[in-house]
């Protein structure tokens, strides 16, 4: 079974690569990057070999934790990192999940990031080479356990997240989780930043001891215990590590079993409700365009609240900037700027995030084409729906950031930059989603699925949207930077330029995107899947 699934995965990869040169380039680039890291990894492991035991042990537990956190978080944030072979596709063949699940897990090891992780896990042996055979043997056995844990964790977490987002309570859960992460991440980042790197490292030993009893550190602690001559502890940690692998495999088998016969339901909202379209939306508007835009906005809002794909992109656009802000704060950019930058980052990500908006309609977009909806009404409706929650959200985050940083003088500048980035990103998105659509997961697919053969198109569209947003937002970014550099009096100017400029760029995007849509609606429909 393992060999069959591996062959299948290789064949699928080869076929996609034949169809799309972009994917070959990506894999080659990824492989080159991984190869370029090899000397660093080997050198680091060798350097560790000459460090005191405690430093070695702590450092490796931290490395292991970072690896596992990466393997659990990144697949959820990066949609469809690797979904070439999914359990559902085997359902019709009726395989035994106890044989299929391990095969799928092994197949998941066949990717550049996975192979690199495996290399890191094995390279850690070098740090223990001087301690004699038994310790090296422990390092080998535990390195393998750590690698298996990473790969299994990514499978289990992805399957779990897909099901979570598809349940009825998806909206509430996504909202609550997003809020919790926001609440925790910013203070943690700020306090880490204020501790400084040395201060944080001083507190490590206690933390690493705790981690060595969890899936994050158990495997990495085993050789350390062996090197210290604590053979009972070494065996204990190793057993624990493989126990976690076993438990993960049991969960994965159960998930595969269920995924085959009971794929996650794909409707996230309440399934029964009254028609609110006519009453509220159909009220006579000032113009036909305004009335049509309101109808489009109402439909889009329904999707924002009820479609797992939108919920997933909502969650990731909120999480990404938060992670970036936390990283900035940790790396030592003053903790203050970290908190003040969150609102602009979120705003930019939310606006820019709609650069493939039309593709999310899929072929259902025919209804707009066939009704001859004016392009401007179509675009304006989408902007209204997003702004209904995004603008209040961004304002709230900006106020919260200023409060956390204790920098009320920066509120105006932060808000101005946020609105400027939002307007520029969304304005660009309204044009690029007409000109450069790329395949999006269909309504009903897993929000984490990616359309094979879309990498090239999506890279081009994302690159173009990013550059255009950057150029359009440049003035307000420069003004914000001047303010942050000490000219706090400029805050009002940043706010005015950001808000007005954002609105202007957004309006231009709606009009231009609308005209393009009028001219090429049918061509656009033909490119949606």
């Amino acid at each position: 079974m393992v060999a069959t699934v591996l062959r299948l995965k290789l064949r699928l990869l080869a076929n996609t690569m034949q169809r799309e040169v972009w994917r070959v380039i990506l894999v080659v680039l990824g492989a080159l990057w991984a190869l370029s890291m090899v000397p660093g990894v080997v050198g680091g492991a060798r350097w560790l070999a000459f460090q005191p035991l405690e430093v070695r042990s702590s450092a490796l537990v931290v490395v292991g934790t970072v690896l596992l956190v990466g393997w659990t978080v990144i697949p959820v944030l990066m949609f469809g990192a690797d979904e070439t072979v999914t359990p559902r596709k085997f359902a019709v063949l009726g395989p035994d999940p106890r044989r299929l699940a391990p095969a799928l897990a092994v197949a998941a090891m066949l990717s550049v990031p996975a192979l690199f992780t495996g290399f890191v896990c094995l390279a850690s042996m070098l740090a223990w080479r001087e301690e004699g055979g038994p310790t090296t043997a422990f390092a080998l056995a535990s390195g393998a356990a750590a690698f298996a844990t990473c790969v299994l964790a990514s499978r289990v977490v992805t399957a779990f997240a897909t099901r979570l987002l598809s349940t009825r309570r998806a909206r509430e859960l996504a909202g609550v989780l997003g809020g919790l992460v926001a609440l925790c991440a910013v203070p943690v980042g700020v306090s880490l930043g204020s501790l400084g790197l040395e201060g944080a490292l001083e507190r490590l030993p206690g933390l690493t001891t705790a981690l060595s009893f969890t899936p994050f550190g158990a495997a990495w602690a085993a050789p350390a215990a062996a090197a210290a001559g604590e053979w009972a502890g070494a065996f204990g940690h190793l057993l624990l590590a493989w126990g976690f692998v076993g438990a993960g495999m049991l969960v994965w088998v159960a998930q595969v079993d269920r995924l085959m016969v009971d794929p996650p339901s794909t409707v996230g909202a309440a399934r029964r409700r009254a028609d609110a379209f006519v009453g509220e939306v159909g009220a006579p508007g000032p113009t036909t365009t305004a009335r049509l835009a309101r109808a489009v906005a109402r439909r889009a809002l329904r999707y924002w609240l009820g479609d797992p794909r939108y919920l997933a992109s909502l969650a990731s656009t909120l999480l990404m900037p938060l992670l970036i802000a936390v990283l900035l704060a940790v790396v030592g950019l003053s903790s203050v700027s970290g908190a003040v930058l969150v609102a602009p980052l979120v705003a930019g990500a939310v606006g820019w995030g709609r650069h493939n908006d039309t593709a999310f309609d899929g072929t259902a977009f025919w209804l707009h084409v066939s009704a001859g909806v004016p392009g401007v009404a179509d675009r304006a409706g989408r902007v209204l729906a997003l702004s209904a929650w995004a603008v209040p959200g961004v304002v709230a985050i900006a106020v919260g950031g200023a409060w956390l940083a204790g920098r009320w003088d920066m509120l105006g500048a932060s808000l101005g930059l946020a609105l400027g980035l939002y307007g520029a990103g969304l304005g660009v998105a309204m044009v690029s989603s007409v000109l450069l659509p790329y395949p999006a997961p269909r309504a009903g697919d897993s929000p984490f699925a990616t359309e094979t053969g879309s990498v090239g198109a999506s890279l081009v569209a994302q690159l173009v949207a990013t550059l255009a947003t950057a150029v359009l937002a440049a003035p307000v970014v420069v003004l914000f930077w001047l303010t942050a550099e000490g000219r706090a009096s400029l805050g009002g100017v940043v706010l005015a330029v950001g808000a007005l400029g954002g609105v202007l760029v957004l309006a231009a995007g709606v009009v231009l995107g609308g005209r393009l849509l009028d001219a090429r609606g049918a061509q656009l429909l033909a490119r949606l899947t």
Partner: protein
Amino acid sequence: MTTTPDASASVALRLRGLTKRFGETLAVDRLDLDIPTGTMFGVVGPNGAGKTTTLSMATGLLAPDAGLVEVYGVDLWREPARAKPLLGVLPDGLRVFDRLTGAELISYAGLLRGLPADVVAQRRDDLLAALDLAGAARTLVADFSAGMTKKITLACALVHAPRLLVLDEPFEAVDPVSAGVIRRILAQFVAQGGTVVLSSHVMALVERMCDHVAVIGAGRVLATGSLDEVRAGADLEERFFDLLGARGPEAGLAWLRPS
């Protein structure tokens, strides 16, 4: 120059030289077809004949490489804003906004067509009742069966009371009772002066419902005219096989018997 739609035009839908190429495949090849006003017009043809491609181009959903589409004398691709209100479309193989409920989807279609709210509400309820979907009005379309989705999409095509209905495979997956209902609705629509174009694989159904037919093969019209003209004294299905060159009994599957 703009054209006013000509309600008395004898031809509801005129296709001239329609051509569409997908890569190496010529899907529709300089296709000419006239759909007379007030007819129930059936379009038949084998899989891959170009029926869906033709109907998509005739309704503004797929840009033709070449050729002309006139709806009641209005050039659809040059003056879409005038031609599209005359058209009601049921496409095949395209999705709908299935995160809306049945009632919401009809309302959305009506609002997009620019109808006032009270008219939309009235027609939505009438359509739900007529198509026996009242029970599903508050359910998400994603939870509908294939046949129910077909019916709700048909309701979307009817909501703005178009003059010409273009329906691609309207009876696929629809149960016999619902099919009867749809047939009666369409017959009534034609009796009041409307025009219906529908495609189907089922010869018997086309023979029973339609007064005019066109047989399409390899992207061209092989025969068209009134039902009697096309079948020329024979069964429509026999004529269909004649026009396309029928095949003998399937060879090569000798092993396919219960083991």
